[in-house]
């Protein structure tokens, strides 16, 4: 219809600044130059900066991996998941238990961590196949809490105290024990996660997810197997989280149930929604905001969280689709 052909209006100055910035990055030359410069900078950053900066940047890369995993479930497949920290806990505890209790080498625990994540993905995916939207969110929220409480009460997981003495990974004869080692390790992981995310997005599976997200019934009527596609989203998404969890356990050498609280799921979710669901640069941007802003504003003390919350409100009010969304949304839905 004629009135629909109008371009969505740019109402606020915030939006127009953001839009012009992204149009700038739509140009391939600018984009690759910027990417090249950024990766170069990140590669030499550890030799220029303090341990504190490296620690925060490592945390940022870690967030990128986890949030890209969550992005597969929420952004690609459109399944609202509020218990993502559970997947992350599954990976961390698989590595933690195998390493600290049985002394198994870190790298050997990784495949087990992925298998455990697949099982966890199926455990939450199967019973919730028929659920959509808010209902799914409630069940996943419960799943996250059940996982945390189970971990807290089992003997093998060390109960409320958690696990200590998880071995450091050895990489070609070098024991990874410096923060700069972990900086590079998580940097590589983040790059891998970004690469895999792009490949998934452009795959048949990625397309199927996109259709299911837009309209599940129409997708089914067009011959997409909704059941397996949804299960794959959970399995692949949880694997990202589990691998990140394993590396997290190896970095910390000690884990406890407190590392996998609901608030962590919320922080991951926030990074994904804030940045732009389904859009990889958007998710990375969301991670940068969620990780860096509270750290940068440390000087202003306790008010920083207040300011952070205020910023989130502003962004959600004026840009509910996220800062860098997957594609422009049609404002007037019929």
């Amino acid at each position, binding site marked *: 219809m004629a009135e629909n052909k109008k371009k969505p209006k740019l109402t606020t100055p915030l939006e127009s600044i953001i839009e012009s910035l992204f149009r700038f990055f739509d140009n391939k030359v600018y984009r690759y130059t910027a990417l090249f410069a950024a990766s170069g900078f990140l590669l030499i950053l550890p030799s220029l900066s303090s341990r504190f900066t490296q620690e925060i940047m490592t945390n940022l890369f870690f967030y990128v991996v986890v949030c890209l995993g969550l992005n597969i479930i929420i952004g690609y497949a459109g399944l609202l998941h509020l218990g993502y920290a559970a997947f992350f806990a599954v990976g961390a505890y698989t590595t933690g238990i195998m390493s600290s209790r049985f002394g198994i080498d870190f790298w050997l625990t990784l495949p087990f961590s992925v298998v455990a994540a697949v099982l966890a993905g199926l455990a939450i995916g199967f019973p919730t196949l028929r659920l959509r939207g808010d209902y799914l969110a409630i069940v996943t929220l419960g799943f996250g809490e059940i996982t945390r409480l189970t971990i807290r009460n089992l003997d093998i997981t060390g109960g409320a105290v958690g696990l200590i003495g998880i071995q450091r990974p050895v990489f070609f004869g070098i024991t990874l024990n410096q923060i700069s080692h972990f900086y590079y390790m998580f940097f590589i992981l983040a790059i891998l996660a970004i690469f895999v995310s792009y490949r998934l997005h452009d795959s048949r599976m990625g397309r199927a997810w*996109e259709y299911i997200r837009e309209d599940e019934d129409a*997708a089914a*009527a067009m011959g997409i*197997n909704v059941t397996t596609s949804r299960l794959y989203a959970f399995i692949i998404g949880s694997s990202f989280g589990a691998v990140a969890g394993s590396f997290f356990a190896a970095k910390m050498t000690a884990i406890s149930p407190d590392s996998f609280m609901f608030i962590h799921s919320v922080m991951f979710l926030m990074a994904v929604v804030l940045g732009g669901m389904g859009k990889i640069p958007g998710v990375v941007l969301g991670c940068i905001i969620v990780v860096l802003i509270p750290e940068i504003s440390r000087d202003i003390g306790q008010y920083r969280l207040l300011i952070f919350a205020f910023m989130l409100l502003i962004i959600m009010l004026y840009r509910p689709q996220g800062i860098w969304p997957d594609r422009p949304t049609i404002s007037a*839905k019929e």
Partner: protein
Amino acid sequence: MSQPVLSLNNLETRYGQIYALRGINIEVKESEIVALLGANGAGKSTTLKTISSLIQASSGSVIFQGQDITYDQPHAIVEKGVIHVPEGRMIFKELTVKENLELGSFTLQDNVERKKRMKRAFEMFPRLEERQQQMGGFLSGGEQQMLAIARALMTEPKLLLLDEPSMGLAPIIVNNIMDIIRQINKEQGTTILLVEQNAKAALKLAHRGYVLETGEIVMEGNADELSKDESIVKAYLGE
């Protein structure tokens, strides 16, 4: 007579405790256009949804080309050659016209074949070719309906289930859509089961028709017989 392409035998569907279909029997033969008529809430759309398994039947059976597909998954039914164009068109408003069509050929792995079918769709619907880069939501109602039909044809279905293709369209566009449906049936021999409230348009197009009333078939016959039947004329056609 040859074996029917589709037959519904005593098909019952319930929403909770409420019966939407109370044991209906319908047959659709090869290369036929069959119209399913009836008022709001008669169970027309439910019939189509039950065939394509978007809703599970509570008893009875759906036989397609001799195979029982009553309890198949929706995607498996599509692979067998039955495709459902749902009511309200259900095109993806935030995907482009081209992407919508690509979805239609999702079951297809062959890229050359996909391009061939896309070309054919554009020949049939030149309007869609002009607008292939536009988002589905920006199309007019008639164009959206064309897109929904074109998308369904991308799978080269043997049986096409059309749910209210005339809904919400201007009379002139309705004629246009009906011509397209006739053309599909003639040129490709696609069997069509058509659900319509616009009984006049549907009976002009169809070979045979069934009339549904509160989940039961109350009448069936050839299209020209039905369009002369007094009670139908009164109830659905208007004087």
